[in-house]
């Protein structure tokens, strides 16, 4: 069974600085997807960034980038130039590729509460 671990329950960062959130996972699969979701106080689950395991290049989305280390089963999220609106709970998640008629099953980590301070 797959597991996802986020070892930092809470983190804080000053506005405009850079912060890295850690995530490790355990799987025997070779092909899979990794995600970072953001959950602000509004409760909405927002996809931040996605990484396909078969791609060696790390995914980037504007100020958000990942450091994907497949052999180490590590998937950290770096937020550059932190903004007040980045304050949220961040979840790391794992999923095997979707299969026709079977959909996909997201397995989440425990979450990291990030506070961006002015």
């Amino acid at each position, binding site marked *: 069974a797959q597991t996802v671990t986020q070892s930092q329950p809470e983190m804080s960062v000053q506005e405009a600085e850079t912060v890295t959130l850690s995530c490790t996972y355990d799987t025997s699969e070779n092909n899979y*997807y990794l*995600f970072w979701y953001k*959950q602000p106080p*509004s*409760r*909405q*689950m927002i*996809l931040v960034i*996605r990484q*396909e395991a078969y791609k060696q290049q790390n995914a980037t989305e504007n100020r958000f980038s990942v450091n994907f280390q497949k052999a180490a089963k590590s998937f950290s999220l770096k937020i550059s130039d932190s903004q007040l609106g980045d304050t949220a*709970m961040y*979840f790391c998640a794992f*999923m095997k*590729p*979707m*299969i*026709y*008629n*079977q*959909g*996909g*099953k*997201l*397995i*989440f980590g*425990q*979450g990291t509460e990030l506070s961006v301070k002015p």
Partner: protein
Amino acid sequence: DTAVSQTPKYLVTQMGNDKSIKCEQNLGHDTMYWYKQDSKKFLKIMFSYNNKELIINETVPNRFSPKSPDKAHLNLHINSLELGDSAVYFCASSQVPLGSGANVLTFGAGSRLTVL
């Protein structure tokens, strides 16, 4: 707007009551899900339906009964509510991508259930 919408957003009820949460998606997806977020904010899948057929049923008490009248709707009915059922329930949907397209779930805004 294209979205996954859930109703109600908030639900407060007494122990022992029966309640339902409704979910609708207009994204044309063929798979829908229910996830539960507990008081520690941990998210876990409960059920998944593909074209009205149950495909994932995690170890959930049988007081929880999902119903999918069509592939755009997935409702969650909970009988004999208990204090421990207090949580945020998220509906989500997805479509198996063609080729190497995105394997992504789209979530609703969540329904906060409080059992007193």
